[in-house]
């Protein structure tokens, strides 16, 4: 638990026409700047949409005009190019503010596949949470990426920032220690407070886990709020993290399965950082 974690050197911010937001760009640029990591922004032009535009009857209903209009391929491509250009400009501005080294790339294809392919080399992948603003549910692309990706993944609600306090959900899984490490690193990066939510099966386990947490905090010289929860439901967890900062979650088979995880993320507005078993713990510190 006290080993020196390796640094996060490469962050992939993956966005498409649905999930991009200036807030996500800002957050990614700030995080990368503070960590001294390189930020790669990937904008995926949705291949399905391109294909759709090729259909002879393709029409779209405007969100604001509420009227149908023909969906032409050249129009769609032009709009996607415009989005990419705007995103690139926003990224450049944010990166300049935070002194972040950055790269911007546009690709075309199935969004999830493109992101997963690009995320192979990334220490951390940042995704936009929602598919579109009429729905509160996690987009299908995000669901697919978090179900298949093995590394750290940060899912951001549009406009959300990495405000403090950081919340670490701690249980008796192997991943829990990594959760604590990452959360601590994030607290240091943001100069903020830490709240540790202990998810235990019973009181004895809660006491044991709290002891471990306190020991760790002592070794790190950190102060944190510690709150034990016995068999927390998704609702109680979501309630506990309301109005807090990012939530660092251990992705364990026995704790939050994929469906539960998606439900949890649907319930909360917090950024969620997913930590998986087996991956190498990487430090959020800049050294």
């Amino acid at each position, binding site marked *: 638990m006290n080993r020196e974690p390796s640094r996060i050197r490469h962050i992939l911010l993956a966005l498409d*026409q*649905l999930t991009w937001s200036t807030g996500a760009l800002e957050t990614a640029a700030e995080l990368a700047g503070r960590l001294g990591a390189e930020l790669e922004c990937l904008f995926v032009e*949705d291949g*399905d*949409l391109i*294909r*759709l535009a*090729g*259909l*002879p*009857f*393709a*029409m*779209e*209903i*405007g*969100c*604001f*005009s*509420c*009227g*149908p209009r023909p*969906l032409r391929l050249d129009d*769609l491509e032009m*709009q*996607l190019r415009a*989005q990419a250009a705007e995103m690139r400009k926003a990224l450049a501005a944010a990166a300049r503010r935070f002194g972040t080294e950055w790269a911007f790339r546009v690709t075309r294809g199935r969004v999830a596949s493109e992101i997963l392919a690009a995320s192979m080399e990334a220490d951390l992948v940042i995704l936009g949470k929602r*598919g*579109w603003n*009429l*729905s*509160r*549910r996690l987009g299908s692309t995000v669901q697919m990426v978090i179900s298949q990706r093995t590394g750290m993944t940060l899912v951001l609600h549009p406009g959300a920032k990495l405000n403090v306090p950081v919340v670490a959900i701690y249980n008796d899984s192997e991943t829990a220690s990594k959760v604590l490490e990452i959360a601590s690193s994030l607290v240091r990066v943001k100069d903020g407070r830490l709240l540790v939510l202990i998810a235990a099966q019973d009181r004895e386990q809660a006491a044991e886990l709290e002891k471990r947490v306190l020991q760790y905090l002592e070794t790190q010289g950190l102060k944190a709020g510690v709150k034990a929860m016995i068999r927390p439901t998704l609702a109680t967890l979501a309630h506990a993290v309301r*109005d807090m900062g990012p939530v660092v979650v251990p992705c364990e088979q026995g704790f939050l399965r994929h469906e539960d995880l998606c439900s949890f993320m649907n319930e909360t*507005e917090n950024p969620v950082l997913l930590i998986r078993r087996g991956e190498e713990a990487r430090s959020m510190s800049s050294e």
Partner: protein
Amino acid sequence: MDHYELKQESLYHACDPAGFSFETTAELKDLGQIVGQPRAVEALRFGMDIAREGYNVFALGQPGTGKQAIVCRFLERKAKSVPVPAEFCYVNNFAEARKPRVLRMPAGKGRELSHDMGRLIDDSRNVLKAAFENEEYQNRARGIAQDFQERQQHAVEELQKKTQEKGLALFKTPTGLAFAPVKEGNIIPPEEFNKLPEEERKNLEAEVQSLQEGAQKLFQKIPTWERELRDRMKSLNIEVSGLAVGPLFQELKEKYKELSDVVSYLQDAEKDMIENLQDLLPREAQQQTTPGPGGPQQDAAPMRKYGVNVLVDHGKSTGGPVIYEDNPTYQNLMGRIEHLPHMGTLLTDFNMIRPGAFHRANGGFLVLDAMKVLMQPFAWEGLKRILRAKSIKIESLGEMYGLISTLSLDPEPVPLAVKVVLLGTPMAYYLLQQHDPEFNELFKVAADFDVQMNRTPESQEEFGRLIGTVARHEGLRPLDRGAVARIIERSARMAGDGERMSIHMQSITDLLRESDYWAGKNENGNGRIMARDVDRAVEAAIYRSDRIRERMQEEIQRGTIFIDTQGGKVGQVNGLSVIQLGGFAFGRPSRISARVRLGKGEVVDIEREVDMGGPIHSKGVLILSSYLGARYATEQPFSLSASLVFEQSYSGVEGDSASSAELYALLSAIGEIPLKQSLAVTGSVNQHGEVQPIGGVNEKIEGFFDTCKRKGLNGEQGVLIPRSNLKHLMLRRDVIDAVNEGKFHVYPVETIDQGIEILSGMPAGEPDRTGKYPEATVNGRVHARLLDLAEKARKFSAQAPSQGGEE
């Protein structure tokens, strides 16, 4: 022919220090009452007491009489008996912000309300923050948002379900929604779609169109749902904020329940606060309170609109205000609306309304210098407008004259109840009275300030107290009784009257200060101002000012200016005039000469002929003609032409104080009688030969004395003065000493006959029963000469036709 000559005691109206009841002014208490201005004080009292429109006061008097100090002192005393006036506060007009409301409050309540509102704002912030962060509100707000989202979600899911049921998929494009047929999770490529049977293609297209219509309806509903969400959120916010701030306002309403205007204002403020609570919540709270009231913050300082602008705080006042506005510009009088530059524009609100002198003096007294008001653009018109309207309306000059067209305020006028006292010179008063019809309507009371007061033992004692009070207030040394006496004597000299004292307070105060200075130099002064310090102050002041006098006397001595001080001359006399240079006046002799010849009975004033003689001087000369004709030519034609001139006069001559001298010169010239050049003459004369009083008698005597002293006193020299000027004599010490020693003489005369006897050394001569004068008299010789001239004229007239015929 003995002539009355003045002795030492007549030359100086000394003040006897032994007459005082004190040794030094340190023993005297401050003077409570106003000295020497009973008329002005009565006018002030009347003007301040009468509660009728237009009874404002114009205090007129010469500069330096202490009008301002006296008026202010009077008003301050009067103000103590006036109730402390109400306070006026400007508050926001929530219905129309550019027309701020006025609240009238009892003294001290304005500041209290301002403080209370400040506290209410702080408390409101806290209770609102607490109310909106409260779990109850958050849950209810989330519930409303949730309901909206669920409706939206449900509609979308329905649409997605229908889409899936029809083997289609829903896609989000950058600007909207689109539907497409899918096969095994992927969109059917166009080429594959085109290979489908036509009927299937048409079916798919129809399905897509049907879904599009569904999506269209969904999108059309969203704005309505959003409006509903906003309305429900607004209702919730109003309910919560009303519950939060209601008790705070209720507390204040209870406190100010006696003041209906304040209660009405509080109701408006409460309503506004509830409706605009997003302005009250801190940004942080707004951001956290999602999806609470939030919204962009429009105003950098939204709390300003709940402030209370107390124009004048009377919380510590004990009576009515007395305000002297030293710089009565339009804005300083009426108040101003300030602007704050912000992002290239000028912003203002009711908090930036600044009071003027009228606001500060409202309920009391306002003292203004009339000339200063008249010299400030628009101030006089503004002052009259306010007094007529009896309310203070703040208007920007720029707006009034269309010079500025920025958005500004139109504050509700403040009711006005004030007495205005204008200070000014008599000239200003009479000019205003003459040329401004409104002036008489608005300033019905004139408080006329005198510059002199009578000298009596009582008034001298009172004057001593006045001096003592001034010295104390000025931080000067106390004066011993000798110094007080000397100050009184000096003030009599300033008044030009031995029986009166000048109350020109500026000069008196200056003399006290300068005497104190010299007392500081006096090692044996015992910390007091003594008589010699006053003398030194007077001498030093004269020395600083008398360069021109010195030069003139030098030129007389050097013979550049012709003045004889001995011997006798026909048709020549020493006249005396006074030159005023700033605050310093001095006398100088002038040679007056007369020449006569046969003529038509006219006396030519050479000064007038060249427009160097003023009207009063010319009048004096015409009186001489009348006198001569009436006295000596009642039975024969007045066949004389005479000319009179002030020798070596290079500027104008005005006044009739030399008319007796001119008459003496004429009589001398007509009668060919030499006049003593060792004497000088002053005094005007009437048609009956009576010598009338003149001004500046002391300066004139001293002027000739200085000339004689320089040329050498021979015991013959002196001055003839009108007898009626005796009471004015306050001569210099050295003149008095010379008179004492018989080196110089002062002769008071009542008639021309008395004067001519002294000047000529010849009896004037009284007419006998037949009207003839004795031969060896002045009048006899004058009469004889005029008869001779008349005879010559008659003969000349008789010869004239034959001479004309010869031609």
